[in-house]
């Protein structure tokens, strides 16, 4: 029994160690280090010895001293076998082993005899592995996007693995792609248009949605139930089935290539979800507060402006942020409706750039960074609001 749980412990833990060391090796390769072998078996057996030593030493020495000693020992071994690798790489290995041995803290010869210990070990390490895996898989493309924008097409064609940045260059040289897309490709204009369209959409949507949501939440009228169910159904209809009729009508009305046309389409497509999210929140406001307002002789306009809006600011801001994000990220309608570079949004401009096979990739990626940064910034900064917005309206996308 004990033998089985120890074996599982050794295999699983060193599997985890192998994974993080391989990721570290891959990331270092992208910094221009010349590794051609992941050496998985070697690392794996080292890991088994490391875990075994850890359990055998047990509580005989202080935990901190123990992990430092073991990490030092194993990273020196690593250095001995990979003499060519630079010091920062070995230091990374040292930190990883330190982190790993620290995670082993709760295992010793005694705890390995507990009930279900093998399942617990598997769960623990799968959790750790999962976190490393998800973080790597998600962040890696963003990392590539960012570093590619600082490289040049030629350098990347020569060695597609070298993403190291040369900090000895001047700032102007380092940020060259950004200067180029602003100066040559007119990106400041597209940023302006994208912001105008997105902020405009937010304002107009709120102007239409707040009164409508209030009516749906509070007032009795014929067709109310029908309206609130159809809101959801309408929301399920995708942009792609609207595109052809809107294209034809907009062409005939001369609304294509106009920011105004884009604005009304964005507003109309986000209105259902905005109304749906807001009315849910309005319903949760106690009715007595409004009754007091009615007693004071307020009409509906006063009630909405002076009571409902101040009380539901959190909900309104999450709707606003959500709508902003949808409008900023929107691509299909801007592809269909805009064909003159004068009226491009950022997304459309990047797509237009990519249509020319001659466009070097660092410009494309610099544009991508520019269109991505504001949303990520807003998301990180207002995460709380946005997450509540996403969960109530985020079925779309």
């Amino acid at each position: 029994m004990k033998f089985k749980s120890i074996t599982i412990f050794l295999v699983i833990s060193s599997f985890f160690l192998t994974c993080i060391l391989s990721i570290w090796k891959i990331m270092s390769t992208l910094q221009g280090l010349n590794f051609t072998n992941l050496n998985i078996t070697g690392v794996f057996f080292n890991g088994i010895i490391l875990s075994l030593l850890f359990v055998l030493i047990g509580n005989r020495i202080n935990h901190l001293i123990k992990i430092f000693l073991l990490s030092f020992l194993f990273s020196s071994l690593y250095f001995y076998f990979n003499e060519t690798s630079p010091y920062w790489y070995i230091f990374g290995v040292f930190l990883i082993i330190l982190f790993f041995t620290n995670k082993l803290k709760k295992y010793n010869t005694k705890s390995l005899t507990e009930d279900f210990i093998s399942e617990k070990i598997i769960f623990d390490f799968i959790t750790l592995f999962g976190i490393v895996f998800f973080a790597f898989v998600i962040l890696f493309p963003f990392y590539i996007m960012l570093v590619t924008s600082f490289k040049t097409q030629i350098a990347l064609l020569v060695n597609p693995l070298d993403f190291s940045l040369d900090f000895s260059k001047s700032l102007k040289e380092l940020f060259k792609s950004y200067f180029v897309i602003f100066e040559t490709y007119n990106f400041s204009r597209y940023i302006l248009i994208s912001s105008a369209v997105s902020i405009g959409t937010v304002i107009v949507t709120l102007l239409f949605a707040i009164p409508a949501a209030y009516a749906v939440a509070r007032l009795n009228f014929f067709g109310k139930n029908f309206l609130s169910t159809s809101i959801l159904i309408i929301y399920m209809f995708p942009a792609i089935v609207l595109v052809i009729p809107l294209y034809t009508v907009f062409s005939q009305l001369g609304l294509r290539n106009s920011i105004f046309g884009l604005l009304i389409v964005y507003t109309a497509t986000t209105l259902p979800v905005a109304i749906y999210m807001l009315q849910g929140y309005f319903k949760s406001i106690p009715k007595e507060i409004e009754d007091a307002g009615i007693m004071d002789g307020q009409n509906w306009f006063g009630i909405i402006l002076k009571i409902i809006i101040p009380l539901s600011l959190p909900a309104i801001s999450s709707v606003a942020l959500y709508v902003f994000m949808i409008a900023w990220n929107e691509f299909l309608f801007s592809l269909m409706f805009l064909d003159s570079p004068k009226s491009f949004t950022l997304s459309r401009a990047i797509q237009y750039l990519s249509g020319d096979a001659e466009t070097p990739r660092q410009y494309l990626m610099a544009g991508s960074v520019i269109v991505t940064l504001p949303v990520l910034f807003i998301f990180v900064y207002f995460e709380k609001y946005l997450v509540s917005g996403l969960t109530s309206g985020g079925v779309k996308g």
Partner: protein
Amino acid sequence: MSDTLSKLEKRTAYTLVLPAVLLVFAIVLFPIFANVWISFKDIELKDIRIPEPRAKKIVKSISDDGSELKVIYKLRNSSLIQEIRNVKFQDKFPKNISILNLDPRCNFKSKKIICDFGNWEAKYKENFEIILKNINDEKIKKEIIKSQKPILSGKSDNPLLTTNFTLENFKKVFYENNFIELLLTTFYFTFFGTVGAIIFGILAAQLVNQNIQGRSYMRGILLFPYVGPVVALAYTWTLLLDPNSGTLNALLVNFNIMESPINLLGQKYITISILGFDFKLRLALTTVIFFEIWRYFPLAFLFILARLQAIPKSLYEAAEVDGASPVQKFIHITLPQITAIISILFMIRFIWNFNKFEDIFLLTGGASGTRTLPINVYQQGFAVSDIGMGSAVSIVIVMLLLAFMIIYFKLIGKKANEI
């Protein structure tokens, strides 16, 4: 008293709701119905421009003292296929000007020339010339003549509004267009994209729900692919997967995991042999599905995490006392608690994946076996520029969507209200 109050309430309600309803009706509902109309018409992209009479004005001086000018109007019908009826023309001149060669179709009165050109057939072209002369033999200023723009008007049929209908579009959709393969691709993409996103969502939610350090950061990071702009992410992935100098292929070749680079987005099939059997895998489609999972599992994660956090801790503690293993806890406590949200997520994501356009369009453009129904709408409507055909495909999408929604409301509509 209460009667007037409720009347007032109704009137208020309608004024509050009406603007939003009208806008949504015009931009969302109207196009869905307009699709039905267009799908029965034989109409192409070039037909949708309403024909206009146009005139380009050229001014030339023909006498030495500049008192005589020749004005040429290059008249044409902007449409290549439709006639314009009853074309009227009007232009203004400064005072003291006479016209030497007045066309019988025209009138010159009080500085204005008004012509009645009758009907122009499609592609109609004419150079219409007049010669102006100053009565007092003074110089006519060319710039003033040039700056005045002629006004033209005419009547024509809007090809969208005629009542010629045809069933051709639907015939083409079902018989000429490899419809079965199109449908199958769409369903593969939708089904595996949805299932994959939900599975990864469950895994991620289960992870973040553990007591780990930096849990809130992890939640934020996991949502990045969902909140990022699709254009940026799709192009980043295209670069990553590029067969010639993409990072992924370069890494695989560098570490000797593969002998030669693989074109993940441009190759339709790949043969994989497992235990001596050869399987043909839709490679590009699989890659696109993985991108789809990458982008949308965060949403499933978010919903499932919210549900997981609402499960009472006491349930797990009781199980602990009873000596349940982690696997037993997951199967007997966690899974039953999240089945409802998973079924809702499945239906909603299924519908949305079914309609997905941008992701596939940006990654492959619908090539190498990734053509789904929404991509086909675009290809028919704008690449082949057959608007009627595109609309017919849209109608097929709408019909399938309605079917899904009916199933959705029948199966889990009630459950959705409980959560």
